[in-house]
């Protein structure tokens, strides 16, 4: 259960680090790279969340007899 909850901290950490990188790059005047970093962080988190979501749906399917 705690292992599951670690994903929360992971995602929040990615969010904060991406925000910091965005700010630093913006200060350096590299707007485009900053935008790109934010997008990549978003996609990274999206992948994590999608894996978790598919696990949830598989579990619901197996519990509520959708296969049979």
């Amino acid at each position, binding site marked *: 259960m705690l292992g599951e909850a670690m994903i929360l901290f992971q995602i929040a950490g990615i969010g904060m680090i991406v925000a910091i990188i*965005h700010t630093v790059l913006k200060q350096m005047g590299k707007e485009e790279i900053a935008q790109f970093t934010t997008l990549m962080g978003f996609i990274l988190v999206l992948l994590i969340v999608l894996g978790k979501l598919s696990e*949830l749906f598989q579990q*619901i399917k197996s519990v*509520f007899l959708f296969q049979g």
Partner: protein
Amino acid sequence: MDIIIIVSIGIVASLLALIVKEQNSSIAFFVVVVTGIIIFLFILQKITGILLLIEQLGERANVEGLYIKTILKIIGIAYITEFGAHLTRDAGLSAIAAKIELAGKIIIITVAIPILTAVIETIMSFMPGG
């Protein structure tokens, strides 16, 4: 003590979402989504026990297996629909949430068609000369 785990996960998640929202609101939404998924997965383990009980009771009462399967399917669809609708409403898209709920209701009726036809056929067989 499961409820304490779930409540603390919820509180931690809301704190994290509040902190991250100031910097990156899209990732804050992902925090909310993952919290929902974790709590749902946790609850599903408990639901399995309840469903086993329902199946055993149905077998003992000689209820046909098809009916119990349909009811379980309907409960599953209702849970998924509720989950999706609440997440969409949280993201600020209440129009899409309403459509998800509508789709859930209609799909539940489609799944329940065999039961409805069975009821109607039973009523028809009671009618004289029907």
